[in-house]
């Protein structure tokens, strides 16, 4: 039965019903063939005896009155009303045949084929005659106790068989018709049953893809009371959209609708929505499903509104952040320059304690400056105002080298060795400034979190349509399960309190956004406590960028 279980429900129903119908048909056919028809045939054969008896009873008076005309009339009438009769004749021992229904000279041989013994009243035999096989019934005609004649009735076996054959054909045709109707009805029923299930499956798929506009109408469609029953043209709920109406919504109706609430309650008494427990199970299921979808839709709409509000709040917050960062940038830069001037003894030699203090001030101002830059980048990203201007350039000379130059102070102070293995031939179409920010962030992070006196290795490989850029260091790295969090906003995987103070938690988030802006990917690999490697995969060219820029232009710029 494994094959049966592999079938769909619709097919299972169809196959089951067809099997049942076939079984019934077979049983019916066998019954017809071996029970009904033989019995019927037997009954028809007996009919010969009944006819003979009836004729014998009436023939007696005609024979005694010697009324041959009426005798003949009677047997002819009998023959014409009984379709299976091949012949009827009446004989007596003196005159032989007195009356017969043949239209040819009476064949004398017929007299002898079923002779009725003197002690018998009736006898039926299947005899061979010139009319073919005949069920011949002989019936004695008595006057008092004396036999005055014999009625012979011949039932044509061929005609009986023909009738049985016709009957069989009719019954078979009827059976075929019943089977056909059975199959058609089964198909229809199975479709009726499985169609709602299929619709439900489709609906579920719609729900999975968050299409809440879909609505199940398994069986009867659940419709708004307005369009279904109440014949009203203006419904207080109608403008609000699809059924079920606002009465069922979790949200309270607004003031205008609330005013119509009592009226609607009256009118809604016939509303389809309230009839969800009416109808068959499939209809109820459809109604419940519709309501569920409607609820989900409402929640989603509410969620959208909330999201919109939050987005608005976030944008304002970002604008404020940019404003503050921008305002802070100039004084911090000025203060940093002043501290640098003091350290360079432009305003006279500093005492060692003074120099230590000024270095601390300078260091804090540098951190603040980086923080301000990050916040400005973040606000640009969040507000969608980040300027993206890609062009073809040499990675090593136009991006990596300037980024390293920019960080030379930090690198020196971290006592970290940088191994720049960037392939000179790597040419990319990128936004130079933004990719420098990415390199700055990654190298800066390596300096900040890397092992003091450790190594940073920069690599870049051309992979055909894309380039793989790597920033490796032998710092402690992060646990594998936390690597995904690295690129989240304000995410800082705290190894210690000291490290927590080192950044804003925005650098990697900004880097990811920039890489994504280029259509690339960024992720981290590594072994905790041993090394960490940040990998960037960038497409070599940007769609719609300046593809026609010549190699000479590039060389010239280098």
């Amino acid at each position: 039965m494994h094959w049966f279980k592999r079938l769909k429900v619709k097919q299972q129903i169809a196959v089951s019903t067809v099997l049942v119908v076939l079984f019934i048909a077979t049983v019916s056919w066998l019954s017809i063939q071996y029970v009904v028809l033989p019995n019927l045939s037997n009954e028809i054969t007996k009919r010969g005896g009944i006819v003979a008896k009836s004729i014998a009873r009436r023939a007696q008076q005609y024979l005694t009155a010697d009324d041959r005309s009426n005798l003949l009339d009677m047997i002819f009438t009998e023959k014409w009303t009984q379709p299976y009769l091949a012949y009827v004749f009446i004989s007596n021992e003196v005159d032989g045949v007195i009356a017969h229904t043949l239209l040819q000279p009476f064949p004398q041989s017929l007299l002898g084929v079923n002779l009725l013994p003197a002690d018998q009243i009736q006898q039926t035999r299947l005899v061979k005659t010139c009319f073919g096989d005949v069920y011949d019934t002989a019936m004695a005609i008595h006057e008092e106790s004396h036999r005055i004649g014999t009625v012979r009735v011949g039932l044509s076996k061929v005609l009986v068989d023909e009738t049985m054959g016709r009957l069989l054909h009719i019954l078979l045709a009827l059976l075929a018709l019943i089977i056909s109707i059975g199959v058609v009805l089964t198909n229809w029923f199975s479709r009726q049953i499985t169609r709602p299930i299929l619709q439900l499956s489709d609906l579920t798929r719609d729900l999975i893809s968050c299409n809440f506009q879909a609505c199940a109408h398994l069986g009867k469609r659940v419709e708004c009371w307005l369009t279904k029953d109440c014949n009203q043209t203006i419904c207080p709920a109608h403008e609000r959209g699809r059924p079920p109406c606002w009465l069922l919504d979790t949200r309270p109706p607004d003031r205008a609708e609330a005013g119509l609430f009592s009226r609607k309650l009256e009118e809604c008494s016939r509303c389809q929505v309230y009839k969800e427990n009416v109808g068959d199970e499939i209809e109820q299921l459809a109604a419940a499903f519709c309501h569920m979808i409607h609820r989900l839709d409402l929640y989603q709409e509410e969620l959208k509104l909330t999201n919109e509000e939050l987005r608005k709040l976030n944008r304002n917050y970002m604008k404020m952040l940019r404003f503050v960062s921008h305002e802070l940038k100039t004084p911090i830069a000025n203060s940093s320059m002043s501290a640098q001037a003091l350290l360079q003894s432009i305003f006279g030699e500093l005492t060692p304690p003074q120099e230590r203090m000024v270095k601390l001030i300078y260091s804090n101002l540098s951190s603040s400056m980086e923080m301000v830059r990050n916040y400005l980048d973040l606000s640009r990203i969040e507000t969608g105002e980040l300027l993206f201007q890609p062009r073809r350039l040499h990675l090593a000379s136009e991006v990596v080298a300037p980024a390293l130059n920019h960080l030379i102070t930090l690198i020196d102070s971290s006592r970290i060795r940088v191994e720049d293995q960037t392939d000179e031939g790597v040419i990319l179409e990128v936004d130079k400034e933004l990719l420098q920010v990415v390199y700055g962030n990654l190298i800066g992070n390596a300096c900040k979190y890397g092992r003091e006196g450790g190594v940073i290795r920069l690599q870049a490989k051309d992979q055909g349509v894309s380039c793989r850029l790597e920033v490796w260091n032998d710092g402690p790295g992060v646990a594998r399960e936390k690597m995904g969090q690295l690129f989240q906003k304000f995410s800082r995987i705290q190894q210690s309190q000291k490290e927590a103070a080192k950044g804003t938690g925005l650098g990697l988030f900004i880097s990811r956004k920039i890489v994504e802006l280029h259509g690339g990917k960024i992720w981290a690999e590594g072994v905790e406590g041993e090394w960490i490697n940040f990998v960037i995969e960038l497409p070599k060219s940007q769609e719609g960028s300046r593809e026609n820029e010549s190699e000479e232009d590039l060389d010239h710029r280098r």
Partner: protein
Amino acid sequence: MKSRLLCLGLLLFCLGTGCSGAAKEEVAVVQVPGVSADEIRLGSSLALSGHASFLGTQTLHGALSYIRAINETGGVHGRSIKVIAYDDGYDPPRCLENTQKLIVEDKVFGLFCYVGTPTSVKIMPLVQEARLPLVGLFTGAQVLRNPFQRYIINIRASYYQETGAVVKELVESLGLEKFAVFYQYDDYGFDGLTGTQIALKKYGLTPVATGSYRRGSVEVEQALEQILPSGAEVVIMIGTHDSCAKFIQMARTRGFHPIFHCVSFVGGDELAKKLGGDGEGVIVTQVVPPPTETLLLDAAEEYTKLLSQYYPEDRPTYVGFEGYLNARVMVEGLRRAGPALTREGFIDAIETIENYSLGIANPLTFNSQDHQGLEKVYFTQICGGNLELVTKPSLKETREVGKSGLKECIGSKD
């Protein structure tokens, strides 16, 4: 030796049984029953005795006068026509017995000139089974016409047509609405009753009264009692001449003077004779023209001449004239069927007759879907003890006869 004995045995068996073996069938195909090199045998069962004997005798004499004339002039395709006629006394069982005898013993080619509805209806299944032609029935029964039957050749118009014509005339010309039907309680009477009902239905009418009598009897008193109180203006009579005559006479005695109408089967000449003075104004519809019109109609002239030649004691009658016309059609069919005469060929030949002039100013037509030869109905009225052909307008005066009970002829001779 064994096989020879077997062959001999089989041969003896076939001969002895007389069954329709294969050898016999072949013979049957070659030898058409009732047809020999110099003779065509036809059979007829009709009333030659009893109350309807006038009809049977006149039909037979009319037919035979023509057939004898044909035989004397060499027959048809060298074959003389022999008619075997048995008397059935207008009794259906006897008619059936006669017909079986004609088919089985006399081996006739076809049947011819049957008289009466119940008798003809009785033998219909026999004709169908034996597949032999039955030509010229002195009955207008609808059952012999519809549904169509290949082996039955009707020449005269039906009772439906007769009653239809008289109802149409009396309703439309005289504005009469109260029709009663007096009928014989058998197939003949039922047919006439149905025909009248159908005809009246066209005018939104139904019979105001009906009365019947048993076939073979003249017990019409009860029927008269049923019809008399209805105050019928017309009594349509579907009966034989003696019962109809008695009904009319009793009605006149009781002071009941409607218009009496009888269909052709009544035998108008005999009715007029029986009624005497009481018959004045009685309408009899006929399906053949008057045989007395010898100056106008060739057929009438020939019929009268042949009848006086072969049956000098007979007077020309409508019934006899119809028998004569039946014989004309039979002979024409045999002629058209050619020398290689078969039953099927004869029917096919009959079906080729189209607009054939019988000499009665009323052409004869058959086809494969219609075996009704003539359609016309003639009105006659008893006038001075004789049947006179009347034109339709002159029927108007009939009303006055009915109302006043005048025992004088007012129908003008056409």
